């Protein structure tokens, strides 16, 4: 096809090579999971909790089971090993008794058509005892507050705490001639990838379970499906079709195990397709973070000390929260050498939607804090924002707050120089 389009421009490595899959994408041929189908497929729909924190007293499934076109109605009792998760298997495939967030799936309905599945899902009755919820991580981290996952994390909702300690902060404050102290807050975000989650699952001619899905990690999905259903890895094939954006929102399991379970139980091909609203309820979110920053510098414009406290709302399940708050702590200084540092980062469980990986992965939120601090300090010092940064950035040989010496590619200064002409004169206020 090189004749039609310019083909490769500028050779191989370093060249503006065109992506092969772009052909199928501009022609409408690329198959995303909602686009694949299999003869005899049924549709599955999850019934999700509208409550953020509740006990399930009982289920009434008779009406749904009797409804037109219904093939199977499944509950937690049908899941051999009812848990999944990237660090802890703390998230149920279908909730048995303890709902921890709004959107938790409770019942799975399979029917001949999507419309019949949705109608039958509407006939499922779940008797919830609504419990008081924890919605503020500062509250949830207090002692004596009910723990959301005592079996995993004991009596606390703090799933992770990392202190990063370097040098001597008292010495840093003694040397500081200018101090800036502020509170910062970032919001909960959705990945909003354009392709809502969808899955096709079926048992193939070998008796193996095949799951066609858009995912960031097929091998992880395979492991979680095999675990939940009690199968060997080689009995489960996860096949990735075109992925319509991900940004971290396709790292945790969403529909994969539910669709696989329905296919394994009914021996029918099973399709699940999220609406946009269901999509919002079935993948992780970006951690909202509260960040208290106190930064000190000398009149000469050298940073001497940083103290920071970062609290991230993990929501109802741990997902990658420990890793994300670790990353926040490690990156809290920004790309600057600060000799004296104390950072404390916490990930706290609440009854909010669970938070996990999203582009930037905990290194994103602190950018608001550390870069705002730099501009505020520059103003206090009468230096340009560019100049203050140039006096403090990491270069080859710099030591980070974790004591790591940067020995390889450290292009911070080159990046600053490259954008300098776009900054113009910034008026001192």
């Amino acid at each position, binding site marked *: 096809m090189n004749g039609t*389009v310019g083909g490769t421009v500028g050779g191989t490595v370093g060249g503006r090579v065109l*992506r092969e899959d*772009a052909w199928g*994408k501009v*022609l409408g041929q690329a198959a995303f999971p909602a686009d694949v189908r299999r003869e005899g497929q049924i549709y599955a729909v999850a019934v999700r909790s509208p409550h953020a924190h509740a006990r399930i007293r009982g289920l009434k499934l008779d009406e749904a089971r009797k409804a037109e076109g219904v093939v199977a109605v499944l509950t937690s009792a049908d899941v051999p090993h009812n848990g999944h998760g990237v660090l802890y298997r703390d998230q149920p495939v279908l909730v048995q008794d303890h709902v921890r967030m709004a959107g938790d799936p409770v019942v799975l309905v399979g029917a001949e058509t999507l419309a019949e599945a949705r109608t039958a899902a509407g006939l499922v009755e779940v008797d919830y005892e609504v419990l008081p919820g924890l919605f503020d991580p500062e509250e949830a981290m207090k002692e004596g507050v009910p723990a959301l996952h005592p079996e995993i994390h004991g009596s606390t909702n703090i799933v992770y705490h990392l202190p990063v300690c370097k040098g001597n902060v008292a010495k840093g404050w003694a040397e500081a001639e200018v101090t800036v102290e502020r509170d910062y807050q970032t919001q909960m975000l959705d990945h909003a990838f*354009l*392709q*809502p989650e969808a899955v096709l699952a079926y048992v193939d001619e070998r008796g193996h379970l095949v799951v066609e899905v858009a995912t960031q990690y097929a091998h992880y999905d395979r492991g979680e499906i095999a675990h939940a259903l009690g199968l060997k890895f080689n009995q489960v094939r996860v096949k990735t079709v075109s992925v*319509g*954006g991900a940004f971290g929102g396709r790292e945790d399991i969403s529909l994969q195990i539910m669709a696989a379970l329905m296919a394994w139980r009914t021996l029918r091909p099973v399709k699940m397709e999220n609406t946009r609203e269901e999509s919002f309820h079935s993948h992780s979110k970006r951690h909202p973070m509260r960040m208290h920053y106190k930064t000190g510098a000398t009149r000469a414009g050298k940073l001497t000390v940083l103290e920071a406290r970062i609290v991230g709302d993990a929501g109802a399940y741990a997902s990658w929260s420990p890793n994300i708050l670790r990353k926040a702590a490690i990156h809290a200084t920004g790309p600057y050498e600060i000799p004296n540092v104390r950072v404390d980062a916490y990930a706290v469980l609440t009854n909010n939607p669970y938070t996990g990986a999203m582009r930037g992965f905990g290194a994103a939120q602190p950018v608001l804090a550390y870069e705002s601090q730099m501009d505020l300090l520059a103003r206090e010092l009468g230096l340009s924002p560019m100049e203050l940064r140039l006096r403090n950035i990491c270069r080859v040989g710099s030591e980070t707050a974790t004591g790591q010496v940067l020995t390889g590619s450290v292009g911070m200064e080159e990046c600053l120089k490259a954008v300098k002409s776009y900054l113009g004169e910034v008026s001192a206020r």
Partner: protein
Amino acid sequence: MKIELTVNGVARILEVEPEERLLDVLRERLHLTGTKEGCGEGECGACTVIMDGKTVNSCMVLAAQADGHAVTTIEGLGNRGSLHPVQKAFLEEGAVQCGFCTPGMVLSAKALLDRSPHPGKEQIAVAMSGNLCRCTGYDKILRAVERAAGEVKE
């Protein structure tokens, strides 16, 4: 109910449900899955098709409303042997990443160039503003439409 419409130049007579959307007809009945569903409320433009020369969100059009009309989907535009100039420009400018928005984007651009072969930058941006993309930042998509405008023959 029975509807008659033309899809990519082919006359179709179909029996549809009253609540059925044009999007469902295309995807489920005709298996034209190049038209995507991203939101179901006319916000994202992934389901854009051209109806009688104008772009519509096919999730917001009832099948019955398409009765008697001519619909063009991404499958009706070009093929590997002969790409539409907009498709070619999207390839060459690197305007495709995950590709989920691409069919809708291509059709919005085609409809613009059909009615206005030499659009200005702002006109292009306005014409593309009903199509969301989460990957590309739109930069290369705009370049692709400009490039296609240069290649489209009046």
